[in-house]
């Protein structure tokens, strides 16, 4: 029981005198005066109060939570990283007044990090963009939605007329719901371009490419929860403690109960490393050398899993030729790591199993990003650490829905659910969209022959991957002949993407200035609104957050979670669905594009329901098993979160609603929703029947190579009727096996319709194209994986460097190694030239290392996320990191006379780049290495740009961007930038 009041003598013997003092002078703390201070202290909120009228809704910050009155509880997900923490919002009178821990969620069990715990402030929205705006003669002016949509549409059509559809770049967002991602991808297709991308480009594009090219799918194989089973963990280029804090709950708990070995291989002694059992400091950009060094010991000592390799992996004989070059002496020469350390890590990883390998952007953001990822996979395959609990490639993705947005094809080279851009893939989605292929074809440009490159027809152009988001500004600035499409980029339509997370911001600034049209649709103005000096043709559209709309999102572990709208969109903001609809209306293809959706009245216009969009994904997402996750099933999971086990993520089989399901129906969730596939907790797991979430490696690289079969040998998922490797299921295979008779009449009718009645074409209808799901159903009924049962491969013959090769960063602190380990030759990728080799050669020749002797790497802070506009606008978070900083080693700082907290200049080797930041003198970084977080913007090369934001929308905290000093360098497969290894010079600022 709680005592409320201390036993206080109400009045003493003082009598009248005491009475006269009572309540006098001592002003009782005024109602709200405590609350009100929050506004006063942050300052600059005047703008909010000056706004009024129209549909404008006042900021709700001061509305107190009445704890005595009931509040409605609504459940959604945190909009920051990919862990997928449930957020419970308490709503009173349409205002989000409180946040409660969602203990029932098996993912976060009530927990949050700083960002999740302050989610509510996102919807207070003091610094949000409040209504549509445009620049007129350099000034921001308020306009109506109608005017904004009309003018943007007119300008887009004008640009299309002059420069073609490809000259409008559609930059989407990892903050989209799955439904908005899908809608945006579809929108781009109906507009007629493959220039559509999102944050995955700069986050895990190399992971997706590298992993998919190894064993089939580009995603985390296991889950955060499953790491509780691991006995050995390697973190390489992952700082989960800051980037995925709630994942650390499972990791640290597992570490304790398993007494697990936790290795952190990183250039920095991070908050994650603080909890490691061994911290190994590596030089940025030497991942492949380190991994091959480990594999050298593994093969040398016979620690590899020979049985696993024989049954399930192709190509080690060939790969060993490269791997075994990395003897301990060479590893030490290149990486600085001694034999003893490398051997210890290798032996533990190979022998104390199950072992998992965790990586993040420290591995992916390199010119060798895809190769790094394949090296990690090679280590997992060599040690047999894929395809069971406690193992696998636990790839921690960055944003709330970067996995889902990638799955939905917000990518220059994919249609939704990884269908690619081949004609069959387009035909498939045209069937789902209920439009003729010729209609979409008519929307695309034909491309003239340029600089000796062949011309492309519209249909051919549909098959060509677009320009990666890391290069849009090059495509806007380069001579049009250098860009492999009709014209360069003339317009950016940016939905929820910052500009400060991509290197070479000086070029980005020039690129923005060169555009004919810039549209930013976002809850905040972002750097896209402030970095440039544009005066006109620049629009800001206020988009609400995911807390203000319905929709699903896919966490890193492939689980889908349905978020319900917490409150109506605040101010004049509106959701993505409605805005994309209105834009396509103005552009003239709304009727075609939206005919498959259920349309309802939205805030300002008609909008499609999230449910009907997800159902369309269910109708078409066969290749990735995005078909079983109906809105109804997802909502049932959210209602029954407490039923799921925190280690297996599975609900008890007898539960009436979600019995036997894995939480969030992690894809692949095969077949139709009615088939009740439980989802796949652990990918490629042969110890579980396919109907229960089992699988095998996906044979997607052909059936044989040089006479050697690429199908699995003596390995199959338990309960399989085919006890051997087999290719993907097609109608032909079903017929051959005699299983086609098990198809229902309806299924057969659908398959025959897809085949156009032609028996040859019908035979070719595969598990990915069969809109009935019958082929999948029958295969799974026989215990078979629809995609086949193949081997993973450690040589990707279709990629540059089929076996990963160590290559020095373009700006390397070891120019002596460049002759032996140069970056790849110049070439053309993704419609753009890549001159990395030339730049590296020039850097060595000009001895840039002498002028820029410090290695610069970058990363995350726990308080902020991505470009940081959202989080730096949140005072609860902004207060915790008020200054952009650069970590400088204590010895380096002493040598340069730099004090902790003092201002310094960090100079970059390109474009005379320099940033003024505060020094954080620490031994987190090694001597000769510096680190800067990438969330800051609003200062550019010493200039404070606060005045360039529309009034009242400037984030609380501004700072220099690390990407003002980062440099050239692109992965040849995906166009991923080099964000983790470049050079700089640090000087004390006056």
């Amino acid at each position, binding site marked *: 029981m709680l005592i409320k009041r201390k036993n206080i003598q109400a009045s003493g013997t003082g009598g009248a005198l005491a009475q006269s003092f009572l309540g006098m002078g001592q002003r009782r703390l005024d109602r709200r005066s405590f609350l009100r201070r929050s506004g006063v202290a942050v300052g600059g909120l005047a703008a909010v109060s000056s706004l009024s009228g129209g549909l404008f809704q006042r900021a709700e910050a001061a509305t107190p939570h009445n704890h005595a009155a009931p509040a409605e509880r609504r459940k959604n997900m945190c909009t920051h990283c990919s862990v997928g923490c449930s957020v419970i919002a308490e709503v009173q009178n349409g205002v989000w007044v409180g946040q409660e821990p969602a203990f029932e969620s098996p993912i976060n069990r009530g927990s949050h990090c700083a960002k999740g715990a302050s989610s509510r402030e996102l919807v207070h929205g003091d610094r949000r963009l409040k209504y549509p705006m445009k620049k007129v003669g350099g000034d921001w002016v308020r306009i109506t939605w109608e005017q904004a949509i009309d003018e943007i549409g007119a300008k887009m059509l004008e640009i299309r007329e002059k420069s073609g559809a490809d000259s409008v770049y559609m930059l989407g967002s990892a903050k989209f719901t799955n439904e908005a991602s899908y809608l945006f991808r579809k929108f781009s297709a109906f507009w007629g371009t493959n220039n559509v991308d999102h944050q995955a480009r700069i986050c895990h594009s190399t992971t997706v490419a590298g992993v998919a090219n190894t064993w089939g799918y580009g995603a985390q194989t296991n889950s955060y929860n499953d790491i509780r089973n691991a006995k050995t963990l390697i973190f390489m280029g992952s700082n989960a403690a800051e980037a995925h804090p709630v994942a650390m709950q499972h990791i640290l708990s597992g570490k304790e109960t398993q007494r697990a070995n936790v290795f952190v291989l990183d250039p920095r002694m991070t*908050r994650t490393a603080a909890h490691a059992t061994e911290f190994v400091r590596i030089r940025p950009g030497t991942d492949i050398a380190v991994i091959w060094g480990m594999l050298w010991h593994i093969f040398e000592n016979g620690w590899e899993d020979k049985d696993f390799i024989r049954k399930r992996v192709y190509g080690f004989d060939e790969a060993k030729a490269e791997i075994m070059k990395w003897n301990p002496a060479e590893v030490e020469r290149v990486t600085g790591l001694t034999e003893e350390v490398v051997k210890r890590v290798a032996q533990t990883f190979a022998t104390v199993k199950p072992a998992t390998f965790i990586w993040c952007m420290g591995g992916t953001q390199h010119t060798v990003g895809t190769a790094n990822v394949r090296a990690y996979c090679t280590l997992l395959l060599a040690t047999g650490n894929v395809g069971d609990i406690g193992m696998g490639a636990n790839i921690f993705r960055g944003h709330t829905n970067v996995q889902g947005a990638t799955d939905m094809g917000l990518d220059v080279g994919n249609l939704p659910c990884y269908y690619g851009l081949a004609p069959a893939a387009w035909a498939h989605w045209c069937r789902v969209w209920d439009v003729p292929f010729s209609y979409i074809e008519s929307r695309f440009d034909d491309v003239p022959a340029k600089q000796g490159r062949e011309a492309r027809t519209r249909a051919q152009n549909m098959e060509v991957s677009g320009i990666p988001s890391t290069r849009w500004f090059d495509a806007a600035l380069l001579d049009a002949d250098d860009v492999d499409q009709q014209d360069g980029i003339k317009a950016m339509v940016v939905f929820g993407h910052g500009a400060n997370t991509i290197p070479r911001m000086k070029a980005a600034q020039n690129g923005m200035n060169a555009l004919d049209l810039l549209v930013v649709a976002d809850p905040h103005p972002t750097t896209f609104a402030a970095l440039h000096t544009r005066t006109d043709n620049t629009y800001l559209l206020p988009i609400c957050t995911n807390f203000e709309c319905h929709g699903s999102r896919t966490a890193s572990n492939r689980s889908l979670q349905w978020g319900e709208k917490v409150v109506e969109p605040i101010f004049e903001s509106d959701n993505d669905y409605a805005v994309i609809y209105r834009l396509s209306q103005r552009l003239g293809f709304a009727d075609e594009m939206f005919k498959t959706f259920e349309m309802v009245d939205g805030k300002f216009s008609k909008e499609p329901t999230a449910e009907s969009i997800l159902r369309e994904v269910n109708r078409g997402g066969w290749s990735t098993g995005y078909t079983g996750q109906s809105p109804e099933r997802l909502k049932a999971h959210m209602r029954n979160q407490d039923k799921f086990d925190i280690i297996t993520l599975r609900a008890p089989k007898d539960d009436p609603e979600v019995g036997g399901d894995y939480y969030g129906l992690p894809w692949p969730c095969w077949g139709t929703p009615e088939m009740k596939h439980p989802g796949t907790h652990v990918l490629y797991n042969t110890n579980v029947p396919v109907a229960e979430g089992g699988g095998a490696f996906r044979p997607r690289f052909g059936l044989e190579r040089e006479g050697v079969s690429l199908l699995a040998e003596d390995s199959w998922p338990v309960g399989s009727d085919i006890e051997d490797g087999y290719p993907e299921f097609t109608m032909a295979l079903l017929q051959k096996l005699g299983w086609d008779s098990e198809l229902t009449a309806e299924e057969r009718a659908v398959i025959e319709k897809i085949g156009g009645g032609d028996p040859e074409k019908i035979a070719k209808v595969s598990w990915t194209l069969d809109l009935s799901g019958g082929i999948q159903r029958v295969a799974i009924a026989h215990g078979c994986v629809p995609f086949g049962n193949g081997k993973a491969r450690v040589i990707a013959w279709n990629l540059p460097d089929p076996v990963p090769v160590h290559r020095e960063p373009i700006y390397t602190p070891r120019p002596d190694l460049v002759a032996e380990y140069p970056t790849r030759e110049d070439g053309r990728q993704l419609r753009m030239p890549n001159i990395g080799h030339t730049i590296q050669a020039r850097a060595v020749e000009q001895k840039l290392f002498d002028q820029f002797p410090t290695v610069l790497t970058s990363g995350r802070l726990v308080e902020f996320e991505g470009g940081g506009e959202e989080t730096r606008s949140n005072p609860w978070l902004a207060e915790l990191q008020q200054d952009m900083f650069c970590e400088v080693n204590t010895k380096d700082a002493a040598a340069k006379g730099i004090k902790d907290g003092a201002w310094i200049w960090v100079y970059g080797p390109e474009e005379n780049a320099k940033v003024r930041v505060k020094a954080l003198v620490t031994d987190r970084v090694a001597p000769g290495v510096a680190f800067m977080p990438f969330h800051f913007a609003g200062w550019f090369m010493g200039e404070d740009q606060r005045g360039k934001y529309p009034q009242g929308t400037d984030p609380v905290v501004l700072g220099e961007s690390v990407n003002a000093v980062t440099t050239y360098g692109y992965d040849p497969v995906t166009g991923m930038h080099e964000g983790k290894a470049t050079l700089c010079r640090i000087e004390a600022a006056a």
Partner: protein
Amino acid sequence: MARMKFLCDADRCIECNACVTACKNEHEVPWGINRRRVVTINDGLPGERSVSMACMHCTDAPCAQVCPVNCFYTTNDGVVLHNKDTCIGCGYCFYACPFGAPQYPKASNFGSRGKMDKCTYCSGGPEEDLSIAEYEKYGANRLAEGKLPLCAEMCSTKSLLAGDGDIIAEIYRERVVTRGYGSGAWGWKTAYGETINVSA
């Protein structure tokens, strides 16, 4: 009777600051007031540990002893609370507190200390339970609703424990036995005169 305590298991703490923003969120704590904070000892060195710290709700609380106006009181749950109507903003409690818990807005005359604010263990203050007045002066009263402090409930790694001191001590003891290490029940000796004995 049970005594409510906080225990930060530093071997779990990753300085994610969820406790800090959860507190801001629950009580609308203004900028510049940090009822809870996370400090990292030996930052950047192997063996660094981060510790989340707020009012420890000490036994024989020094703040209460030095307060010139006796504005502190201890509830039956062992929570040390104060009365903002009585507080004169003198700062003595801050001088006496071993944990830097008392916070002051720069709101009084000459911009000097306003009325002290500190962690309430999410249990409000002397106003009527769950009243608007209580919320606006002290923040939410989760204890009255049968809930524990939000900082601990939202801790990303279940590092920060809150609840009956005996129970959380037992949780910590079990953890240390399971994993074989523990850097200590930070602040307990200073706050309660005794720490948790772990014979692992």
